């Protein structure tokens, strides 16, 4: 059994499997990053788009005006303001009293919502597997940036929220939590689960949704999450089999969640029509996200994690 220390220190002991690095806990899924990749992630900062309101000051911009060295704005003097903040230059020019305002930095909570529905446990490579790795990478970035990271699994009609972690020393706890996630049995109402997750959010932060959005009301999921005070990042994960189905002939397609079937004759024309439909569907999400000031990234599980973090997400300015 591995020992995981809280705080910024590194774990000192781990009984791992033969051939694995000694510091990695045995509960970890063998698909998790190696030590080298973790060190690379330490250099990244999770860039926030706008200042947030929070209880802790951290290294992030906030909409609150606080006591920092970074000038933000002017305000007319009101009785009781700190006279040390009067701007004497403005008084000399305008013969009016104005005080300076400064940006207040505070920490953020990064909530990673992982779609644990049965449809995520399909595909080659497996979508849930991919989502766990992406969640681990993003969670580690947050932890390394002294942010709070919380993982919540959407399954059934609820969101199972794990305890929030803070500090880079909690990364293995994060990886352990992610490794233990299993897909839900039966159908998942993604809207209900997202609503439940939204209700669990406190304050403003960043919500990262890792999902295949294979729900008839998936657009409502985005609306529900975007209506919170957190910044929403939607990582739409699909497998290559869903992007270009290798189907041929007369088939009865069976839904992995509901068990419902539909008869399809998969010829080239049908596949082309499916792809067109898929592209329109994703475009719909992109436009909805843009309207709700959310970030939408469509991903294939074939994309290497390196490329995901250092290229795709950096390009979208999700990661610094």
């Amino acid at each position, binding site marked *: 059994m591995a020992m995981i220390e809280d705080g910024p220190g590194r774990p000192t002991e781990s009984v791992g499997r033969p051939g694995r690095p000694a510091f990695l806990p045995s509960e970890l899924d063998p698909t998790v990053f190696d030590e080298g990749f973790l060190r690379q992630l330490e250099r990244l900062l999770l860039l926030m788009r706008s200042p947030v309101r929070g209880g802790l000051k951290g290294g992030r911009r906030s909409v609150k005006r606080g006591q920092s060295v970074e000038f933000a704005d002017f305000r007319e003097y009101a009785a009781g303001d700190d006279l040390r903040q009067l701007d004497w230059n403005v008084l000399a020019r305008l013969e009016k009293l104005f005080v300076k305002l400064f940006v207040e930095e505070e920490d953020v909570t990064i909530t990673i919502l992982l779609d644990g529905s049965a*449809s*995520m446990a*399909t*595909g080659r490579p497996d*979508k849930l597997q991919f989502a766990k790795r992406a969640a681990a990478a993003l969670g580690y970035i947050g932890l390394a940036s002294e942010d709070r990271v919380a993982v919540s699994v959407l399954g059934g009609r609820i969101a199972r929220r794990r305890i929030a972690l803070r500090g880079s020393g909690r990364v293995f706890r994060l990886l352990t939590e992610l490794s233990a996630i299993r897909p839900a049995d039966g159908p998942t109402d993604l809207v209900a689960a997202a609503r439940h997750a939204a209700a669990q959010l406190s304050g403003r932060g960043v919500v990262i949704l890792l999902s*295949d959005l*294979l*729900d*008839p009301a998936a657009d409502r999921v985005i609306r529900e999450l975007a209506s919170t005070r957190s910044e929403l990042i939607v990582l739409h994960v699909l*497998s290559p*089999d*869903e992007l270009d*189905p290798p*189907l*041929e*002939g*007369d*088939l*009865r*397609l*069976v*839904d*992995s*969640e*509901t068990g*419902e*079937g*539909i*008869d*399809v*004759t998969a*010829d*080239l*024309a*049908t596949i082309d*029509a*499916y792809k067109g*439909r*898929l592209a329109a*569907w994703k475009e719909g999400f992109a436009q909805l996200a843009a309207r709700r000031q959310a970030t939408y990234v469509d991903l294939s599980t074939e994309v290497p994690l390196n490329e995901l973090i250092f290229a795709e997400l950096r390009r979208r300015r999700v990661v610094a």
Partner: protein
Amino acid sequence: MPFNSPLALLGLLFVPAVVAMYLLRLRRTPTVVPSTLLWQRLAADVEANAPWQKLKRSLLLLLQLLLVVILALLAARPFVERPAGLARDLVVIIDTSASMSATDVPPDRLSAAREAAKDALKDLPAGGKVSVIEAGRTARIVATGTSDIGRVRQAIDSIRPTVSRGDLGDALALAQQLAVQSGDAEILIATDAALAVPPTTRVDAPIRVLRVGDPKGSRNQAIVALAVRTAPSAVTRSVFISVANFDLEYATRRLEVWGDDHLIETRTIPIDAQQRADVIVDDVPADVTTIEVRLVAADDSDPDARPDLLAADDRAWAVVPPQRTRNVLVIGNGDPYLETALSYLPNSRLFGLTPAEYPAGAVRKDGTSWDLIIFEGYVPATLPATPILAIAPPTSSGLGEVGGVDKDPAIGSLGTDEPILRYVDLSTTHIAEAQHVTLPSWARAVIPGTKGAPLLYAGVRAGLPAAVMAFEPRQSDLPLQVAFPILIANLTGELLGGSAAPTAAVRPGDPVALTIPPGAIGLHVVRPDGTATDLIPGAAGGTSVTFTQSDLLGVYTATPIAAPSSSPSGSDGPSAAPSATPTPSATGSAGSSAPSGAQGVDPSQPIRFAVDLFDVDESAIAPGPPRVLEDLGKPQPSPGASGAPGAGSSAVDTRPNARDEIWIPIVFIALIALCIEWTLYHRDAVLRGWRGVTGRLGRLRRPAGSG
């Protein structure tokens, strides 16, 4: 549309079977997918375009149904009718004479004749029957009254050329027998009409000639004669060759003379148009047994040299008879004319005895017997068991009855085919006196006389050749004429079993009588192509067989087949050797001695004979006018004209139409449908493959790290 086999349309019953199989085939394979969300939306779109989608999916079914319909149609054999151009009963005659091997029409005239005959069959009316006759030296039926056109074509294709003279008259007579019972018959002759023997047989049916050959195709030179003569010295031989040019232009050819596969001499011979050139080659080595003469191009390197159109007559063979010294005994008081004539005989030794010394003095010291005994003015009481020539026998004997003397007997009408009289001219011969002899039953009259008494007769008596000359040569002016030594040579040649005359070749297809040597039970005959046949006489003790497979040109070799328990053939054992002493009572049964020629046959030597064309009529290959043959038949009946008086419509009116089956366009349509069906079925696979290739190529072209 009419059908030859309408019952085959029952195959259309497979159409519902195909539909049923198609519907059953639509079993869908269950496949688990993450979600059917997008597929449901897609199905909604597909449903909107249902009619067109259904049509696309049904196209394969339609094509397969079309193929079933096409196959049923093909099996039913649809046809279109048109008036038949041939009679209901057709007799096809294919000329296979030597001239049909001419190459003026590639590959040769016979091939063109076969194709023309097969092509003409398409005008046969429905149900028409065809007989096919091969017209070579004799006529042979290769197909009889069959409506199976496939078999008829096979029969026509099986016909091969011959190297013999053709006889269309024989074929027409056979065709007449086949057509006589039909009310609507026609004879089709595929020939070059280069008739060696113009037929005269009239046929009670119309004749149509399919003439083949280039009307100007007369370019042919041929060897028309070949003979080998022994020089008087009996040491060397001379070869006489005659070459004819049947072309209308001057020609130059090269003659090659081969002896036992060794080239002896070559000559370049110019020959004027329509002329002959004779060549004599002397000093042929004495040990040569077979002479072959070849007519080849004068200059192989000349590209403008036009080849001879008929190769069959450019080669000839001659067998040189083996030399063996014959012992001839003359019993008489001496006739210088006779002895002089006998001395000219090649390979012969002459002995003489007086009648008083006979028979005691006739015993040969070496134990062999005489090859010929000539009794001149004397006949012994007991005739020897050898070939005998009796000249002016004074008394009756086994050789014939003598009844007096005829003064100034006239020579009767001489037969033109008598071999003893070959090259013998007796038109100026006068005989002063001759014995009046009666022609015995075993003999034939060679020189008939008047008053029923022949002047010379010959035959086989008691299994041995014998001849009787009724007059002494010196009792006539014959010894003073050129004919006398020739007559003596011919006469002794027949009595000795081998002719001293020039070697005579056998014509292709002619039967050849072969003598079985003593001690052998048959003959093993090898043809020029190497095939062999064993000939055994049907009757026990038979001494000759007839060989009929002489259809190839070249040299044939017959070797004796030894009896199972007897000594090997050709040995000089007592049973094989003729008796050295003529036995007074020897009868020479037919079982123990051979007919004419057997006495001279060396049992140790193989018998060879040559088969040559030597036919100037057949070598004249210029195609002739078809009318010569067509005029032998009835005029073609016309539609509407009545036949026999009192008859109703003519045979043409009642003749069924010809049927052209239209399977070719149907097969073409079927193949197109198959191609479309294959393309439609595999369209997706082809497109996927193409997209895969183009995708990979696109990724290769894209710079790494972009996107």
